[in-house]
């Protein structure tokens, strides 16, 4: 089960499994982001290319106004596929 919510410090907190059935919800939530923001992956177990595409699209939109997403606390599997996709070149990942 996937969830996306705002954390106490204004960060975006993802949890569960972000598969292709959940990307519209993710896209809707990220539409309202207009300033630099942290996305916390601590409780996200899984992501596929569908969710990665939404993150990339958001990063491109924010870059037009000099803003960006920072991705934190990725598990090892997600970190690995983000590296394969070159996300370490287009996101700040901690």
């Amino acid at each position: 089960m996937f969830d996306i919510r705002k954390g106490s410090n204004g960060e975006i907190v993802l949890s569960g499994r972000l598969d292709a059935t959940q990307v519209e919800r993710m896209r809707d939530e990220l539409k309202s982001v207009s300033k630099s923001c942290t996305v916390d992956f601590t409780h996200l177990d899984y992501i596929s290319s569908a969710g990665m595409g939404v993150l990339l699209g958001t990063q491109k939109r924010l870059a037009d106004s000099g803003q960006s997403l920072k991705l934190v606390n990725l598990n090892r599997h997600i970190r690995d596929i983000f590296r394969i996709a070159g996300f370490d070149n287009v996101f700040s990942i901690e």
Partner: protein
Amino acid sequence: MQRSFKRDLSSLEPLFEFTGDFAKAHRLDEPVVFAMNLAIEELFTNMVKYGGGDDTVFIALDVLSDDLVIELFHSGAREFDPSDAKPVDRNQPLENREPGGLGLQLVRSVMDHVAFEHKNGGARVTLSKRLRGA
């Protein structure tokens, strides 16, 4: 284990239950389960979006000696040449990146062997991943 799934994104939930049951029965490690789920989701969603053909996709999972073997068969599917899917250049700057086209690249990266064939009136994808040392 083998099962047919309706060719629709709503099948992802039962599909993950199916792979979860298989993983439990074979005591697969977490990295293997992540890779299996990712590869199957990417290929299945491609069959949903672009495949045409029948409304069901057949999926078989097996462990043969030290390999996880996955097969997806989509009867009546359009012929697909995987070499048409150009790999994403990971070194491109953000402005040149497009949010798409990553799926097959991820499948190839998490599996040891990926084979596409179009025969017997359908598309078959066979994948394997070595379990020992995974």
